[in-house]
């Protein structure tokens, strides 16, 4: 509150007013001045555009017409509360609120309010900026991140499911066989112990139940086939880069994309391929974080019947001791990472009939990951039919 400014009224009101109105007219932000009864005294050109009313239409009206209903109700209380208690809810603070356009549409605005004491009484000045665009970007980012998280989770779950199913299988197999041996022992010969046989039988049943659960889990995990569509690689790469750079700090990192002209489309599951690329680009970004010269590049081209996408970086390269198990789950060296990214990425590539490999760039430093995807769907799905059945005495 600038009490001292209040006293001296303008000496030459005409000049000052003209200047004021030109300032207000050219201001990019919406500017509204209202009196202590919340009646609009001034409404600049930007406001006219923002709210769809002309200055003449709103002059003298309560400022509430610019607000959604719920907000308008609270506003009366705010104003009278402030005038009696001096408690500031918005003045000098600024906050995000919703405005209401003449046509009823609501939109987000950033509002800051100032106060002036004039010979005509207290006046309030509101400065408003339409932040719909910024909000839209924020929302898109949030969506993209949520999508990324959820697809990483799904695959992590698959990968983990497969790993757990395999790990549990071994002891379970041993348990079943031991129990079956015990049962034989208990029921054989003269000293057959029927009570013991019964108990071991129950144990066998439980072990079988556990084994069915594992089989079901395995079936579920194995069934997930890529949902193939015709995919254009170049836009996909761009999207992935955007996705990674939106969500991560990448100051000083030079990204480059080098895509051959007239790349054909490939038959692939775009969500899964995107996941692979996001993983690779994210890894590259993390690898260059610690070095001076930060470069991440993605290139794509056709080699014979395959699409080759290469993600390379100028980081420290993959530590030699990690290379042998690089694509195994939980092999990562990062404190934060699960170490699933590459394992999942490779299994996606292989599910597509392709592969994922690492190249150490050697002298140039850095690592390069090469994703190979067949241009056309290989008939992998043919021999997947009946993947649910156990295979016993299969082919000759």
């Amino acid at each position, binding site marked *: 509150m600038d009490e001292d400014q209040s006293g001296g009224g303008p000496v030459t009101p005409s000049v000052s007013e003209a200047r004021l109105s030109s300032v207000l007219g050219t201001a990019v932000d919406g500017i509204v001045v209202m009196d202590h009864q919340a009646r609009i005294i001034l409404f600049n050109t930007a406001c006219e555009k923002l709210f769809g009313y002309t200055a003449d239409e709103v002059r003298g009206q309560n400022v509430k017409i610019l607000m959604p209903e719920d907000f308008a109700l609270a506003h009366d209380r705010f104003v009278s509360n402030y005038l009696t208690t001096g408690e500031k809810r918005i003045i000098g603070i600024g906050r995000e609120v919703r405005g209401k356009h003449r046509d009823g549409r609501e939109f987000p605005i950033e509002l800051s309010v100032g106060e002036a004491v004039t010979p005509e009484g207290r006046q309030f000045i509101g400065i408003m900026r339409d932040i719909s665009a910024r909000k839209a970007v924020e929302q898109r980012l949030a969506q993209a991140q949520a999508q990324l998280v959820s697809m990483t989770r799904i695959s992590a779950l698959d990968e983990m499911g*497969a790993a757990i*199913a*395999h790990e549990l*299988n*071994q*002891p*379970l*197999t*041993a*348990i*079943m*066989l*031991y129990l*079956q*041996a015990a049962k*034989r*022992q208990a029921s*054989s010969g003269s000293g057959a112990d029927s009570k013991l046989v019964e108990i071991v039988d129950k144990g066998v049943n439980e*072990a*079988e139940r556990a*084994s069915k659960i*594992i089989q079901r889990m*395995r079936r579920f*995990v*194995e069934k997930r086939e890529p949902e193939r569509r015709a995919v254009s690689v170049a836009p996909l790469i761009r999207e992935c880069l955007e996705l990674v750079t939106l969500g991560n700090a990448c100051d000083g990192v030079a990204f480059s994309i080098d895509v051959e002209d007239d790349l054909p489309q490939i038959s692939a599951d775009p969500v899964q391929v995107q996941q692979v690329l996001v993983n690779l680009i994210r890894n590259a970004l993390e690898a260059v974080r610690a070095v001076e010269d930060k470069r991440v590049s993605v290139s794509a081209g056709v080699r014979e019947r395959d699409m080759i996408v290469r993600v390379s970086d100028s980081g420290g390269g993959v530590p030699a001791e990690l290379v042998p198990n690089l694509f195994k789950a939980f092999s990562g060296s990062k404190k934060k990472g699960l170490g699933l990214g590459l394992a999942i990425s490779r299994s996606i590539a292989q599910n597509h009939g392709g592969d994922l490999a690492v190249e150490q760039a050697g002298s140039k430093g850095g690592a390069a990951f090469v994703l190979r995807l067949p241009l056309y769907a290989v008939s992998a799905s043919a*021999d*997947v039919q009946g*993947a649910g059945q*156990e*295979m*016993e*005495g*299969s*082919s*000759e």
Partner: protein
Amino acid sequence: MTVHIVEDDPGVGDALALLLQQIGHEVVVHPDAESLFEDPPPAAQDTVIVDLGLPGVSGVQVIRWLSRLKASPKIIAISGQPRKAIEKMLGDDQPAILLRKPLTEEAIIRHL
């Protein structure tokens, strides 16, 4: 006949041996392919149960070796791997019998 078990998981190997012995078979357990190769090769009337996921020399190589013996024994492959991984691993060397873990007494006896 003798049943040779090539299985790196000691629990699975021991349990399987115990069960087969009870049924009345003579059983030899090898923790890896190398130890199988050290012994005299299995006879034609023998059965070899091979885990595909062996450390070192793989189960697939064991199967290839066995099936090229002049008088090759009966081969039963066992594996806890997902089906797709198994098929990929085996390529052209599909064994006559492939059982997936967890194994049951019933499934094994059927093939002995």
